[in-house]
């Protein structure tokens, strides 16, 4: 990279605010996905003004610019695909304001998701979106990806909790969109920018809603001897209009991998478990828990266990949230998908995934947000075996096509990034992609901000590119 640019960045941010040596950059060529791309330099702004100056420098030198939080993303969204400057927000980690009465907070993008909840829970509030990586991931990253999590079934995803953003546009202009009061006048810019995967602007401040903690929480583990029974239970719970706060499913293969690592007490001989949570008013929770248990029994659950205390609840959730770390222990490389299907299609889809796996010679694990129909099939493979790697690509492609045939989508919460860009034409026509490109170009005219993301780079469609890593990804999903 141009020495002048690095010198200018060092002048702006100090020597400890810029990394440019090869060994330092190595740390930033990964995220939580299987993608790899190395930036040419990494910078750590401390303020909106720093971000503005960095954008101006990138413009002057025509060098790409990519925002990054904690690097836990699962689609290569925060990787510098075409090199350039990686803007890491870890030093912009201040909570700028909390308004308990009005349930609002203003945060810098580098604030860790769970830290916000920790700061407000004394007042009976929390920040509701809870990606499994919430101990590490940042709210800025959540905003870029419109992150979900287990409890988004009842509480909604990131976009439902963001009221306003301070943007630093690729032109270097800082502008506030949305507002702390509801219904900011004009088009819903906040709705557009949340989930735009860092391709339209960098974000330097975020105004979010805080949500009351429920009076009561009841966590149930339902154990099944058949995968079909478990999926039919989810369909039945949904169609009866019961909305648990969370409804997570883990198949037998996955829970055995997890149990060996976390010791959460999952029964090793079962075919599937459902981790179900109901919350709210005491009276409502009791009734809902009973309805949920009744549906589980109707579908032959062999055991329904309620967490006796907070400790047991935490353990069950630890099992869920650390599952991917557990899988990383047993296989050198795995590939996780993020397709979504209508909930009514869950049994058929899970059966199809098993068939597709068998046909291609893989055992596919499933651990996912069942209540949302958001699948995370996991394919384990050995990256050194080229033939096997090709079969992974075919297998993953078959699964995602089936999801789309069922009326689904290619990503529920991980984002398109540089991992699924080639799949976009399966869902969107060239005209539709051109409209989205038009929006991108309107804000990001030179294409310097996070290039090579979301949009397919070539006309060929439906090919999944997976560049295997030498080490397993271990970030939790």
């Amino acid at each position, binding site marked *: 990279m141009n020495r002048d640019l690095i010198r200018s960045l060092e002048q702006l941010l100090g020597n400890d605010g810029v990394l440019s040596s090869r060994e330092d950059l190595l740390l930033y060529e990964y995220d939580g996905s299987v993608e790899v791309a190395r930036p040419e330099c990494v910078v750590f702004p401390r303020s909106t003004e720093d971000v503005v100056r960095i954008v101006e420098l990138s413009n002057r030198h025509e060098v790409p610019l990519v925002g990054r939080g904690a690097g836990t993303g699962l689609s290569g969204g925060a990787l510098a695909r075409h090199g350039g400057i990686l803007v890491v927000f870890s030093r912009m980690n201040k909570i700028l304001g909390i308004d308990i*009465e009005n349930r609002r907070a203003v945060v810098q993008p580098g604030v860790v998701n769970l830290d916000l909840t920790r700061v407000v829970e004394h007042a*009976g509030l929390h920040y509701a979106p809870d990606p499994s990586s919430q101990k590490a991931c940042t709210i800025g990253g959540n905003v870029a990806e*419109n992150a979900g999590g287990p409890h988004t079934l009842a509480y909604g*995803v990131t*976009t*439902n909790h963001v009221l306003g953003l301070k*943007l630093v546009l690729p032109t270097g202009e800082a*502008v*506030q*969109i949305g*507002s*702390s*009061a509801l*219904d*900011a*006048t*004009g*088009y*819903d*810019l906040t*709705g*557009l920018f949340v*989930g735009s995967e860092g391709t339209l602007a960098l974000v330097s401040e975020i105004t979010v809603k805080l949500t009351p903690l429920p009076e009561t929480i009841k966590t149930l583990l339902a154990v099944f001897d058949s995968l079909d029974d478990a999926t039919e239970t989810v*369909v039945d719970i*949904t*169609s009866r*209009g*019961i*909305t648990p706060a969370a409804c997570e499913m883990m198949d037998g293969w996955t829970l055995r991998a997890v149990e060996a690592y976390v010791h959460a007490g999952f029964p090793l001989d079962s075919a599937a478990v459902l981790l179900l949570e109901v919350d*709210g*008013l005491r*009276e*409502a929770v009791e*009734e809902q828990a009973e309805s949920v248990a009744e549906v589980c029994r109707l579908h032959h659950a062999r055991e329904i266990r309620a967490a006796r205390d907070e400790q047991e609840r935490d353990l069950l959730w630890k099992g869920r949230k650390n599952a991917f770390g557990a899988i990383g222990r047993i296989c050198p490389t795995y590939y996780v998908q993020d397709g*979504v*299907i*209508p*909930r*009514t299609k869950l049994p058929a889809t899970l059966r199809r995934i098993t068939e597709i796996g068998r046909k291609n010679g893989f055992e596919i694990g499933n651990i996912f*947000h069942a209540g*949302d129909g958001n699948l995370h099939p996991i394919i384990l493979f050995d990256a050194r075996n080229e033939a096997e790697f090709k079969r992974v690509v075919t297998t993953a492609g078959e699964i995602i096509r089936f999801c789309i045939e069922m*009326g*689904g*989508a290619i990503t*529920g*919460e991980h984002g*398109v990034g540089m991992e*699924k860009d080639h799949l*976009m034409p399966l*869902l*969107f*026509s060239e*005209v*539709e992609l051109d*409209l989205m490109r*038009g*929006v*991108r170009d*309107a*804000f990001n005219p030179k294409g310097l901000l996070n290039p090579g993301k979301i949009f397919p780079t070539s006309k060929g469609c439906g090919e999944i590119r997976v560049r295997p890593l030498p080490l397993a990804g271990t970030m939790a999903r």
Partner: protein
Amino acid sequence: MSASAKISETRFADIVGPDYVALDPEILSSFEIDGVAPAAVTRPGSAQEVADIVRLAAAENLAVIATGSRSKLGIGMPPARYDVAIDMTRLDCIVAYDPGDLTLGVESGIPLHKLADVLAEQHQFLPLGVPFFNRTTVGGAIATGVDNPLRQLFGTARDYVLGMEFVTGEGNLTKSGGRVVKNVTGYDLHKLMIGALGTLGIITKINFRTFPLPPASRGFVATFDTAEAALDFRHRIARSALAPSTIEVLSPGVAELFYSDAAARIEPAALRPNLLSNAKWTLTSGCAGSDRVLARYETDLRRMAEDAGAIDIVMLSDDLQAAWGRMREFVPIALASSPATTIMKLSVLPTRIAEMLERGAAEAARAGLRWVALARGVGVIYFALLPSDASENSRTEVSGAAARIAAACSEFGGNFTVPWCPAKWKSSLAVWGPERADFAQMKKLKTVFDPCGIFAPGRFGGGL
């Protein structure tokens, strides 16, 4: 060449068939917006026909405005140009309904009440209890972005619209989002369509998540001497574990409106006599659930209302729908209550609601204007000025009071617009609120979606 001359030569009939193009002045006048009539009305029968009409209009530089039931055309500025109305009401199909998945896809011209009946058969509903409910189309409710009391628990359309199909200003039929409840594939362009008044695209199809109807509902009505006391009750509810589906504060004077003949015409179900006191403030709250849950709500709400100084408390069950109906129809009832009703929408943080109401009341009194207000617990206030006539003098009084109320709202960090007022007064009121710093960003979007500027020119704020 004049627009009407161009239209007579333009072959809209080739697209929709001769029966579905109207040039008859009587029909044209029924599509007027603020006194401006189109030169033609088209009634497409499919999304592709909408796209073809728009493509033709773009080629001829004709301004188009999509309409539904035409119940809310008063929102926004008068059109700068208005050549062709696209009547969307023939697109009234349910495209996909998967009750088990709680998802639904409909064409935008379907009447909301008709859709509500279909959903009710499956014990489901959409939380779109919007004004003009018995007339409005789903597309109209979404394109105008009108909110409703249920936002307290369910949020607004942006929270439960899953995807849309729409036509861009170049006549391209496009979509964003999908029909699954969780989806981050591509930009959320459909969110931009909500409340954009058809200036970015013409919505042809909308996918929603639906919600289960609760087993039972109750209403809780508490009367207070002051706005401050009523809002104190609101804050107590907010701090409690309760999650009511609605919280609405009604000002003095609303009773007179709600018990009027005009109100009975708009929402015929009879409101229980003496439920509202015309001299007092009232907080109403809706709650839903099983008998045990409702009992808990009643106990807790009663206690909190008493602690906040309630002077009267009433529970509603059987006649709940009548009360909710009138509250839902607050806007049309207020519009029928004065020859020049001017309704401001003021959005402030919840802790500023009481102050905002007091300032509004003081400014209205200073101008000698009758007024009423409905404040949602989330901080959105509909403040209606009800002058006795539409005279020039009234216009001066109303625009002066509105400007001062707006200034107070800005001072409190709030957002305001004036969604409803006499057409002739729009030039003297800040219909779209103050110029915002981010309007420049919105203009970029307008250029992408509608490069020729043919969608509802002049109707939206900031010259969009």
